[in-house]
């Protein structure tokens, strides 16, 4: 995680935290829910929760871990709510590329990113969450275990499952 444990009483402003963690929270939300609009809801709800609890944050452990934990819980809550309603598979809105290069390169890259998006969404939710935090966000196995509230061996198992499934699914791109 990029930050360290804060000294007690040294709590950053909401804007600082938002600037540092909004993209990461959005990525986590999107990778769990597969929907950009719901991922934006995850960001908003996460930071509203942070506003209400920042004053009582006691600086135990990295603040990033605390934020990811809130974001993860928000994403799971939205996911549960969504499962209670009928989900239209066509409603899943995959992210688009932001900075295409040449036309040919951008077409290839867009195809690859679309396949990566679909592939990750075929994994189970707990496996997706572990893979996102470990292999996309670059957190340590220990940090991921704390955020997901599972053992490190459970994280390792989920990671192995994710990597193997994605390897088989994306084989043609892995040359």
């Amino acid at each position, binding site marked *: 995680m990029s930050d360290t444990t804060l000294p007690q009483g040294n709590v950053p402003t*909401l804007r600082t935290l938002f600037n540092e963690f*909004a993209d990461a929270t959005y990525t986590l939300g999107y*990778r769990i829910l597969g929907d950009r609009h719901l991922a934006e809801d995850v*960001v908003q709800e996460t930071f509203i929760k942070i506003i209400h609890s920042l004053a009582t944050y006691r600086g135990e452990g990295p603040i990033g871990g605390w934020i990811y934990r809130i974001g993860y819980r928000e994403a799971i809550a939205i996911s549960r709510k969504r499962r209670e309603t009928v989900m239209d598979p066509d409603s899943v809105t995959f992210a688009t590329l932001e900075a295409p290069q040449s036309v040919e390169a951008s077409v290839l890259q867009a195809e690859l990113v679309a396949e990566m998006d679909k592939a990750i969404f075929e994994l189970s939710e707990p496996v997706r969450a572990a893979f996102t935090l470990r292999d996309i966000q670059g957190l340590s196995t220990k940090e991921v275990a704390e955020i997901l509230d599972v053992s490190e061996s459970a994280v390792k198992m989920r990671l192995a499952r994710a*990597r*193997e499934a994605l*390897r088989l699914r994306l*084989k043609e791109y*892995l040359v």
Partner: protein
Amino acid sequence: MSVTCNELDVLLPEFLDGTLTPAQEAAAAEHLATCKACALEVNELEGVTRLYKEYGALTLPDDARKRIMGTLDLEE
């Protein structure tokens, strides 16, 4: 001492994370130097991690960023 394909499978997650002991790491490397199938598998698994590291993270769109900041300002 080298490991078998099945033994390497067990070590793979930690091999990819670089958290094996030096002895285990050496045994895995020795196996990979002689087993093309396992070497290909490891190469592909590393490719998965590389791809998602490069393309997996997203940026919150500017319009959403502004809208959410506006909502947060009101909440504060």
